[in-house]
């Protein structure tokens, strides 16, 4: 990635009542890229996002948006950011339109045409003049997205964005995010529990646990693959695998081999030569869920909170 990062988290740390909720977090986000933010409950996702949006003040370290510290140049830095933190809470007693007008006034330089444009983009034209209290959760999400896009942000932070959207809505939402990332070079940062969503949406993921960033990986790099081999006698299979120096895991009726594709025929030939009966050889691609659970050790609630 040769591009300049649009958002940088530098040694971000948050201590509340002696507990280190966020521990020395470093992360760069690039234009045009959708980054997923994963972590078990209580890992510090929301705290991190709140610090990135200026709702919380970091104990140490800083958030830099296009070279400007969020803390020192708040107004200018935050004007490049669009935010949906958890459920988009709107003023329920006003119409969707008045809500958008309200937020538009806080940004300046947003005219009525822009408001109408955003309303069209999120597909709320028909109900925009009705009170928000009559909206379904999905419609509120759309309105939430609309308010976050009003000022054409260069960086979009979304916390659980698809919560409450129907499948068609989620798909539309995903397509839309991909579009603004690709066409307008918007950098998107999405936190979600829905791993399958993140898998479909993101270019890379950052995983946080106990307030520490434990992994950042590109999503479309070669997916990790294992091969499941069911054969008898199992002891013999193990022996052969060991002799060939493969990593494996013994299961009920077979082995889970961590090998590359090219090694498979070699292994099968060896098994046949030794007279082992082979019932199945299956490639098994690890889903993000498998990887996630592996990384976070079963996803238990962060320890810092239980101590």
């Amino acid at each position: 990635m040769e591009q300049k990062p649009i958002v940088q988290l530098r040694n971000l740390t948050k201590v509340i009542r002696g507990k280190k909720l966020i521990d020395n977090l470093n992360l760069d986000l690039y234009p045009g890229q959708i980054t997923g933010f994963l972590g078990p409950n209580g890992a510090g996702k929301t705290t991190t996002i709140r610090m990135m949006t200026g709702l919380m003040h970091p104990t140490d370290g800083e958030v830099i948006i296009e070279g400007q510290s969020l803390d020192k140049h708040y107004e200018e830095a935050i004007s490049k950011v669009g935010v949906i933190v958890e459920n988009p809470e709107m003023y329920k007693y006003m119409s969707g339109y008045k809500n958008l007008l309200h937020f538009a006034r806080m940004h300046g330089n947003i005219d009525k045409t822009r408001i109408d444009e955003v309303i069209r983009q999120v597909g709320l034209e028909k109900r925009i003049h009705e009170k928000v209290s009559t909206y379904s959760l999905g419609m509120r999400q759309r309105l939430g997205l609309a308010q976050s896009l009003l000022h054409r942000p260069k960086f979009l932070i979304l916390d659980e964005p698809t919560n409450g959207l129907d499948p068609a809505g989620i798909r539309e939402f995903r397509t839309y995010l991909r579009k603004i990332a690709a066409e307008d070079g918007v950098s998107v940062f999405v936190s979600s529990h829905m791993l399958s969503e993140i898998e479909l949406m993101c270019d890379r993921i950052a995983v946080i646990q106990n307030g520490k960033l434990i992994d950042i990986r590109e999503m479309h790099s070669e997916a990790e693959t294992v091969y499941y081999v069911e054969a008898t006698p199992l002891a013999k299979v193990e022996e052969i695998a060991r002799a060939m120096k493969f990593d494996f895991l013994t299961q009920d009726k077979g082995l889970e081999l961590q090998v590359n594709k090219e090694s498979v025929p070699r292994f099968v030939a060896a098994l046949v030569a030794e007279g082992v009966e082979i019932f199945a050889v299956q490639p098994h691609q690890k889903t993000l869920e498998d990887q996630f659970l592996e990384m976070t050790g079963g996803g238990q609630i962060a320890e810092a909170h239980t101590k």
Partner: protein
Amino acid sequence: MLKLIQNEWMKLWHQKSTWVMLIILIVVIIGFGGLNKYYSNTDDRDWRTVVEEELKMDKESLAQEDIDADYASYLQDNIAIAEYRLAENIAPQKGESFASFMSFGVDLFMFVTLFTVIIAASIVSSEYSTGTIKMLLTRPVSRAKILTSKLLTSFLYGFFLIAVSLAMTAIVGLVLFGQESGVQLTMVDGIIKEVDTWGDLFEKAYLSLGNFTMSILFAFLIGSVFRSSALAIGLTMFLSFSGSLVVMLLSKYWFAKYIWLAHDLIQYQTGYFMIEGITMPFSLAILAVYAIIFLIISYWSFMKRDVTA
């Protein structure tokens, strides 16, 4: 800043309670006016007969033996005024008049203060309770500006209600009681003087603004620090009702005169002081110091706070 106030104003008027308070105020004015008109003095005898009758009664009371000195001097004043009226041919006020109804309008400032306290107490805390604070504070507008817009909007609503209550009492007063008005007389240091009704009214009105301002600032402080409008309204009301009691209980201590509650400016008109020996400049200084303290705490807590709502 203008746009922010515009926003707050828009949100304010989309809430039912804002309208309810305005309507209550208007209904109270019309209702009170109607009540007064309906039950007003229908005595259409000549005012001389009435005054003479009252004069006779006062003299009889004074003639009794076991009356206390205060009452006696009150009666003597009354008698002197009545005799003066008859001699100089000055008609007294007859029942309700435009001016006395306007004085009711100024009394309504207490209502207006209560309503404005409700707004000031909830204008910050409601953003927290609905979660919209997250939407509000992730904008390119500093927290100080947002809080300022909310404070100014609270005062704007208060002044709007004051304007409405004055305009409504003027209209209702003119329609029901007309402009004609008798003359009120009073005895000052043994000299009979005409009461300057309008001057008194004006004085009462601007002295009431002291309590109005302090109540709003206090409610705004509690509302924004504790994010609970119920606590803010309750505490402000409690202090405005029991404030004089609190000051009285503490009046033997030296610091009693440094409590803002002891400085309701209306005392300078009524002449009854909770604490003896205070002067107008001293009271104004104390109120100003407290106002600044309230504001500093409000701003400091609003700007420093981590939003977790």
